[in-house]
């Protein structure tokens, strides 16, 4: 990736203006992530019926010793560099007209990985679902569980409810997200 400079996750209203609705992690003062990976596991299970790093559209960066864990979720960039990089845009990668989220239509995904490589964030928020044959790899990306009336399953299944949606959050006193109603 050369000298690519990666973005920081947006927090302030000004920063958030460049991003669509996305899954955020609340301040530990509101709820501390227990590191159980339920978000990642249930994401994979509800999307694919299987769990693994490739098909979890949300990942957990575990502090090996600290036990402080950081959620790695797609920030749904308004300028969508992943979409722009896709050689099959509008067939393999599409934009949800309602949420603005970029989503993947696997039928047309050729598994080139350009979307993942062009993610603004490090680690990339787009994962690659591997297969026994390289040509059958597919990209996996958070689509906010589009079409699911329960909304994002990672948020639903978090036992300590430390995840939410960016539009429902504001910055707390510690500069981290808290739910609006809790401020």
């Amino acid at each position, binding site marked *: 990736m050369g000298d690519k400079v990666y973005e920081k996750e947006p927090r302030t209203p000004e920063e958030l203006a460049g991003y669509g609705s996305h899954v955020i992690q609340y301040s530990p003062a*509101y709820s501390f992530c227990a*590191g159980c990976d339920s978000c990642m596991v249930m994401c994979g299970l509800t999307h694919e019926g299987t769990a693994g790093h490739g*098909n979890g559209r949300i990942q957990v960066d575990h502090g090996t010793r600290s036990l402080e864990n950081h959620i790695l979720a797609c920030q749904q960039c308004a300028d969508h560099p992943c979409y722009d990089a896709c050689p099959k845009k509008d067939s393999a990668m599409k934009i949800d007209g309602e949420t603005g989220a970029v989503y993947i239509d696997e039928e047309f995904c050729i598994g080139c990985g350009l979307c993942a490589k062009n993610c603004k964030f490090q680690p990339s928020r787009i994962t690659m679902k591997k*297969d026994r044959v390289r040509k059958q790899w597919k990209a996996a990306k958070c689509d906010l569980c589009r079409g699911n009336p329960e909304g994002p399953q990672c948020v639903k299944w978090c036992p*300590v409810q430390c995840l939410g949606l960016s539009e429902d959050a504001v910055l707390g006193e510690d500069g981290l997200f808290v739910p609006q109603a809790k401020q």
Partner: protein
Amino acid sequence: MPNYKTADFLENPDNKEKLYGYCGKIARINLTTGAVSFVDTYAYVPKYLGGRMLINRLFWEEVAPGTKAFDEENKFFYMTGATTGCGIPAGGRSAACCVGASSNPEQYTWGNSGGWFGTELKYAGYDGFIIEGKAQTPVYIKIEDDKIEILSADDLWGMRVHQTQAAIEEKHGHDVKSMVIGPAGENLVRIASITTSNDFVFAKGGFGAVWGSKKLKAITVRGSGVVGPADLEKVKALRMDMNNPMMAPKPILHLEQAGLPGGFFPAKYDRGHAACSPGCNQHCHGLLMNGVTAFDDQRVNHVEKCVSGLTFNYTVDIGAPVGMFWPSKQNFSQPCKMLVQEFTEPDPSDPYFEEQGELLLPDILNFWGPDYDRGTIINDLCNDYGIDKWDAIIFILPWISACRQEHLLDGNDLGTGMEPDVENTAFIKKFFENMVYRKGYYGDLFAEGMSRAIAVLGKEKYGESVYHNRISQRLGGKKVALPVSEEAAWGHCMHWQGRGFEASCDKPTWLAMNMQNMLNTRDAQTVEHFHCKIEYHQEALKDPYHCPHVIEALIHTQNNAEIKDSLMSCEWQSPDLWWPEMESLMYQAATGYPVTPEELDEAAYRSKLLFRAILIRNHGRTRKMEVEQIWHVMQIPDSLNEVGDWKQWNEMVSLMYEARGWDLKTGWPYRETYEKYGLKDVADEMERLGLLPEHPAPDAPRWEDYGEEPYSKFVENWKQDTIVLPPQQK
């Protein structure tokens, strides 16, 4: 190659039952030859479920009698379960087994650990692995999907646990999962542990020393594949039904007192919480934030689990209500709710409300006073050297404290150059450093484990002298005798046995717990907290040695421990006495295999029989051996100054043996017992070895030749004592 979609494992020709949940293969890695081969998981499941049951079968087939912990022939088995990685609560845990180094004498030893390693191993395509042989020079094993490499660990050898983890992440990336040993394992310290992320460990078995003997410093894994349960809707239902998950925000707490109930003291610190494994719906470990460390000026977070709470203050033992072992349906709560301090509101309409809520006041043991930072350093020493906290906190340090108070260490610095004072952090650091690096006479001695060390020092003096500073709150503050050593059985220390550590239980409970400890050393061979429904409590109190409900509950407890260690699950989530289908639902959700609770119980009987056969064949287990092992504890008074009755205890042992289908004289299972659970081949082997008992003649009197009660120097010392209460008249 890992499984990348369900078709990959469903279309595996060996997967004849079309089971979900498993990967299908177990890696066999030989450190002597460098060879890697594979065992077909489906040759053993569903009959042996996975986890411990599968290990028991492999151990029986592969580890020959006479194999010692540090022999090249010793094998280390690591196994996940069908639920591992499937999003089923507690399923992320894993089991391991080998001839462990910690027990005395050495024997089959087991462990169950949390962490992320097991799930990652399944992502890489393996249900488990078997480590064989010995490397000539330090190595670590790197698993990345298909690629299994044995690499030089010359640069890792000598590092402490956290240094090793950091170095591995530096080499192979932050996302790699690892299990490592510290210097204690390298130096064959018999209480050395194996550590995975967040200080989750295989602690009790001395597995770290076994790895050290094999020159194995670490195993790393990274997998790109998937794990798939059979029924997502059942997984979801289990996630909501198992143990009432919080599903609500839980912030970091800013606390102003530390310690355990009865021993709280002022201390300002922040406390978070942590899950132990992927996909669990609980978070039952405490996270003590920003604490001091033992080796530098960093401040780091420490996980607090179970026994580590006593490091901060061991003045008072841990108390417990009757309902912890004798729960009522209306006020039943699984232990993880207690650990995470999410107590449900008591329901006073419960007819057993008062009985199950009675708090059995703990003894005052006076081993050390409160000091938050000192406790944090003790925990850090254990974590970073890679030694079992249980032995450090319950066996070593209380022994030093008791011996010093009894003037048994006058003029003896235990090789530290300072007074043996467990309230002096500098002494503790030096003592552990000597032990971990086997420095000097005492360092080398204590590296052999407390049981062996006390035997060398002289057990009558250093094990069985009376400690005079135990005070029974249940007897209104009277002094009750306790030996200076908390050794219980098989070289391990006491645990919910009515005296010593976690003594707050009544006689039916401590009889049951001692029976468990006699048959399968807690916690080096099982973790199983005795449970019996409260409606049988009064009957058990009337005749605790002969209560059929206690025997029935013991078998239920033991069998459920076998099941939870095989699915996998967790001692804090299983069993639920009022939801007997829970484990079968877990297995069905993971595999799609239609198993009933009765069939799971049958599998547990089978596995317990294999375990028994291993103890008999490999380690010479007999009734005489195990009754004598445990009897030492029963001669120590409980909090009411009561001791065990030799004849009645033997009668209880006989009831247990009969219920299991074992011979009363030898403690060995009969042929029909093996065959009933599909183990004819085991019966044949035991017969060939002369280890299959003959049934007594039909008209023969019931065997009752218990022999004389074994002599105890402690009892003799106690009888002569004038300060503590005299021995209770039986």
